[in-house]
């Protein structure tokens, strides 16, 4: 099982929409997928129409008695299962801090389900904290959405610098998110970052109103607008990720 975390220090950059849509793309290309919603806002949980409830609370889940398999719910998408979030995840840092080897705890919980899934997506809250370090300890790769603006590219550098100081950090797989090709700034930042980051994934995710419809539809874009450019972009992005990690 490969663990992929959609992660960014910055909020509102498309982490959850990426996790949900890439989970669908992974599943329809034959993967057994687990999505673990680690964000107390529970947006991924909402998109999958699952009740936001961490059975027994986050403290119990991350304790030595925690078993991730008990929390798994089947989504309506064949091949996609979800560990839902609830508001108790706002104290994830605190509970991890109280556990043994906090930066290894999420990896340890995922180990209990690794034979059941090919891919686990961790949908992370925007921060850099103890929980983030536990995510880095569990993930094979960080999928980092980058809006092509100056601030977003700055946070990518911050993240890269932080990971540089870690022992065996996950691979960094940045990609452009919420791209508006009509904006000159977006085009310029994309060109600049592509030359600076040769491993940047090449498929950009557009800033599209069809993606915003995930809220009322409560489903990934590919489920209600499969031929839209946004759905095609997520398919292309997954194909790149799969090629990088499994080819």
């Amino acid at each position, binding site marked *: 099982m*490969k663990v992929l975390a959609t992660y960014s220090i910055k909020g509102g950059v498309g982490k959850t929409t990426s996790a949900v849509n890439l989970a669908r793309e*992974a*599943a*329809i*290309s*034959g*993967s*057994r*997928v*687990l999505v673990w919603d680690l964000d107390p806002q529970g947006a991924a949980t909402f998109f*999958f*129409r*699952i*009740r936001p409830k961490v059975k027994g609370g986050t403290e119990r889940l991350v304790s030595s008695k925690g078993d991730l398999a008990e929390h*798994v*719910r*089947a989504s*309506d998408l*064949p*091949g*996609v*299962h979800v560990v839902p979030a609830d508001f108790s995840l706002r104290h994830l840092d605190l509970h991890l801090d109280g556990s043994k080897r906090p930066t290894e705890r999420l990896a340890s919980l995922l180990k209990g389900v690794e*034979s*059941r*899934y*090919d*891919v686990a997506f961790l949908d992370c809250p925007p921060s850099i904290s103890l929980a983030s370090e536990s995510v880095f300890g569990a993930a094979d790769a960080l999928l980092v959405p980058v809006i092509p603006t100056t601030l977003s590219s700055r946070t990518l550098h911050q993240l890269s610098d932080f990971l540089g100081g870690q022992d065996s950090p996950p691979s960094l797989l940045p990609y452009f998110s919420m791209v508006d090709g009509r904006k000159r700034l977006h085009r310029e930042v994309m060109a600049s970052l592509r030359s600076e980051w040769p491993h940047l994934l090449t498929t950009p995710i557009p800033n599209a109103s069809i993606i915003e419809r995930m809220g009322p539809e*409560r489903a990934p874009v590919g489920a209600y607008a499969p031929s839209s450019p946004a759905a095609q972009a997520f398919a292309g992005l997954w*194909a790149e990720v*799969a*090629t990088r990690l*499994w*080819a």
Partner: protein
Amino acid sequence: MGGLLNYSSDTLPVHHLASALVGAGFEVSRFRPVERTLLDTFDGRLHAAGIRVEVRKGAELQLIVSDGGPAPAVVVVDRVPSVGGDLPPGPLRARLAPLLDVRALRPTVSISGLHATAVRRNESGKAIVAVDLHDQLAAPPGEALSVRWTAEVSPFEGYAKAAHQAEELLGSLGLTRRDGGVLDLAADELAIDFRGHLDSPTVALDPAEPAAEGFRRVLANLADTIDANRPGTVDDIDPEFLHDLRVAVRRTRSVLSHAKRVLPADGRDHFKAEFRWLGAVTSPLRDMDVYVIEWPGYVAPLDPETVRVLAPVVDHIERRRAAEHVVLAGHLGSPRYRGLMTAWRAWLDAPATEKPSSKKEKSAPALGPIVAARITEAQEQLLSRGRGIGPATEAEELHELRKDAKRLRYLLECFGGLLPASSRKPFVQRLKAVQDNLGEHQDTEVHTTQLRAMSQELHGAPGVTADTLLAMGRLTEVFDRRRQDAREQFAERFATYDTKPTARTLAELLRGLS
């Protein structure tokens, strides 16, 4: 949650069940035609690994891969996959392709009929349980099944209560519950064994039984393997059919060569010659198969540009392979082949045994001592030849040693029913280490010769440039280096085999036979 729960009824019409499901809050889709087929390799390796690959042909073509875990993989495909490389790239291919190796996927059991799905949702619109309804069930091409329709409950992970309620509903309607899904039901009725065909050379043997009977049983089992693999070879399903057919032929020849004073002399020489013919006619295609299978490994040491200019060689190999297949298919459909196998079966079934060669041998010899003597002779022959090989010995002597090793290996495998597995396996492992070295030496030498011959054939052919011929030269050098490496490693490998522990293991192996 567990797997599918399958229900059916002899009396209740399926539309009554559909109405009952609607009454219980299920949404029931329209019935649409569907075909469901399980795929596996000829030798059932997916079944052995606990994996099911199903093709479901309805509005779209779906591939459903389950392994008993909670999340089956479901993928829409353009066509039914045949080999691992046909699977979509990513985790599914990474999981299945190594398991399939060169084997092709073939249908094992199919059902057709009409299909509808009944889904119950919660207040958020989330599906919490599904019931698949199959009506007008049949097993193509036209086999009727005893059950006309079925209902399969698909539990959703994390929603056990809803699944339990659905089971209660079906039970309250008087439906009969069965284990397994609708494809298991069809397989049971059609007597389809998901374990597939296993080509084992080992049969049950008794050391005290007459040797002729044991030899005949071993040879009849090998004849079964030849027959079982002929259709897949002729239909060109995957290269393993030919491989297994060839191995069974070689084992047959080897066992026949050890059958002196066991089986009648009159037929023995005739059949040895005929199986030599059969082995020989299968070689050209197998040579080409090996090229196709091993090509990525062969060119791995070369740079990408060199690999690119070798494309005409790959085309040439594939053309030759196709031509050789036509030739072999002709041989395997010929009167000579059919006559050989018919006569062979008749000869094996005949009661006659070799007459005792001396007055001392008043009764037929027992199998155990004969096999022990043959294995001992084969080992002595192997050691004697191997000890005589030095750095300056001709390559031909190593090829003969490879044949000696194969003869010993085939004896151990074909008469494995007499030998304790606990000492047979470690002995075979020791022998295999020598065989691998000898195989690498001979194969690379053969490839070197063949590539040189191919260079001549391709000289001046359309699309073949000087770069292609130079690249073939570089590939020949790769093989030649590998051959030299194998030759250099031989002495050490053989010395590791030619030891007291090997002799002790062999003695333990043969202890119960005399």
